[in-house]
């Protein structure tokens, strides 16, 4: 793409999320979300293959529907409160509609069907933008309307997301689809705690973004998009196998790695609010997630996956791809657990 256009689209992407997060008028937040959608569609179609076109079309359709529902919820809120300030909503209908619209934008179950297919059709770095940056704007709106969200709807959607994120990823060999299902499950964890302690949603979002960034950057080093290709990294860059394994285990939520921190905090906060069955079920279904991360770690770092003999003797070149922030991201996504008290600043 023309670099001038590319800079314009990327800066509009940043500007739109900033507009959504800093605005106090509902119309502005809506405009920000629309700009966000418009700016990322050409980025998704950098290589205009039919796969990318299909992914962009699916993304556009779902996000446009969600924006229309959001506008309806905004107008119903206007009718019952006669003001446009972004704060808790004043009508249950508006609240339910807006929660569902933002769930479509985030990819929460039962609106999760677009996430694996869109993530699979686009290049790896664009998938990174889709699964990390695009989550910031809807979660900031959810944070601001959190006092008025219907508890039953939210908990249903988030528990369903954790289930579907875990179960759906079990049968996948394509790494982008695995990351998509991982995103669905993490969104489920994030939105569970939204109504009890929204700061933990922000904590979970931060840790999730760091871990997903690490994972995608590791994958983009060798442009590995399938489990088979990932299992050959021992031959080209052996150190990557260790990093990949640690990051995957961190994403699965194992102590003493960073990924344990949000799960621990969320379960603690839920038990403080006297709900015991929900965190138990959430922790159990997170094991499904852990299973397919473990499978990837196993085939990458712990065994020599079966491959043809000439794949086992690759020439080891110096890496020419720039590993932007990779060491920092790896350290952040594996070693932050002792710094848990530091996140008191998020409150």
């Amino acid at each position, binding site marked *: 793409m023309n670099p001038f*256009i590319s800079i*314009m*689209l990327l800066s*509009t992407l940043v500007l739109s999320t900033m507009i959504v997060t800093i605005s106090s008028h509902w119309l*502005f937040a809506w405009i920000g979300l629309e*700009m966000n959608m*418009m700016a990322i*569609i050409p980025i998704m179609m950098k290589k*205009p293959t039919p796969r990318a076109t299909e992914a962009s079309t699916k993304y556009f359709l779902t996000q446009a529907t969600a924006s229309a529902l959001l506008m309806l919820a905004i107008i119903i809120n206007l*009718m019952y409160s006669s003001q446009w300030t972004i704060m808790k909503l004043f009508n249950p209908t508006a609240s339910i509609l807006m929660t569902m619209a933002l769930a479509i934008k985030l990819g929460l179950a039962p609106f999760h069907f677009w996430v694996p297919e869109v993530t699979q059709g686009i290049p790896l770095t664009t998938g990174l933008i889709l699964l990390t940056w695009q989550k910031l704007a809807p979660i900031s709106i959810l944070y601001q309307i959190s006092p008025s969200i219907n508890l039953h709807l939210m908990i249903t959607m988030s528990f369903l997301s954790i289930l579907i994120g875990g179960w759906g990823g079990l049968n996948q060999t394509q790494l982008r689809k695995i990351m998509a299902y991982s995103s669905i499950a993490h969104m489920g964890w994030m939105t569970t705690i939204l109504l009890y302690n929204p700061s933990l949603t922000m904590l979970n979002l931060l840790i999730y973004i760091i871990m997903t960034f690490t994972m995608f950057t590791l994958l983009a080093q060798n442009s590995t998009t399938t489990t088979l290709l990932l299992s050959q990294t021992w031959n080209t860059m052996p150190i990557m196998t260790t990093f990949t394994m640690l990051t995957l285990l961190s994403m699965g939520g194992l102590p003493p790695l960073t990924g344990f921190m949000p799960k621990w905090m969320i379960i603690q906060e839920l038990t403080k609010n006297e709900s015991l069955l929900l965190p138990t079920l959430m922790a159990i279904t997170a094991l499904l997630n852990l299973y397919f991360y473990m499978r990837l770690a196993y085939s990458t770092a712990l065994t020599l996956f079966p491959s043809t003999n000439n794949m086992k003797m690759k020439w080891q070149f110096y890496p020419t791809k720039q590993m932007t922030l990779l060491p920092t991201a790896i350290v952040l996504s594996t070693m932050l657990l002792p710094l848990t008290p530091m996140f008191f600043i998020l409150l």
Partner: protein
Amino acid sequence: MMMYIVFIMSVIFVISIVGVSSKPSPIYGGLGLIVSGAMGCGIVFSFGGSFLGLMMFLIYLGGMLVVFGYTAAMATEQYPEAWISNKVVLGGFLSGLVVEFLMVLYVLWGEKVSFVFEFNGLGDWVIYDVGESGVFSEEIMGIAALYSYGTWLVVVTGWSLFIGVVAIMEITRGN
């Protein structure tokens, strides 16, 4: 009497939007948009928003739809699909018509026409025109305020429209 005129306009509005959304060829969709736009303007007029209604006629119908009509005419096929040429389109249109007809019957027999326009009583819900000043109309002054207090809004909407065009050009470029 006035209420019935507005009610008829809203019925034609819904029928033409059903005609657009039953997916005929874009030329016929544009025709549906013109009729629905005109009826929508009529409803806005009836609430006292004369300036906004005329603005919509001028810019939306006279600017955007004209450009859309010309580009659709340039890109049209030899036998474009109308509402009666395809059973799918006809079925969609007829089912929308049936539902609208049932609603019209319900409103007229139940003497609920005023209920449909209950928000006529919420004076500033459609057009913000119930301000305290009796000297000027806040509706028109709001548009002037857009260019003085609302400069940032003009910048943001202008930029987002520009990005919309850039995005469409990039996507349809092909290579």
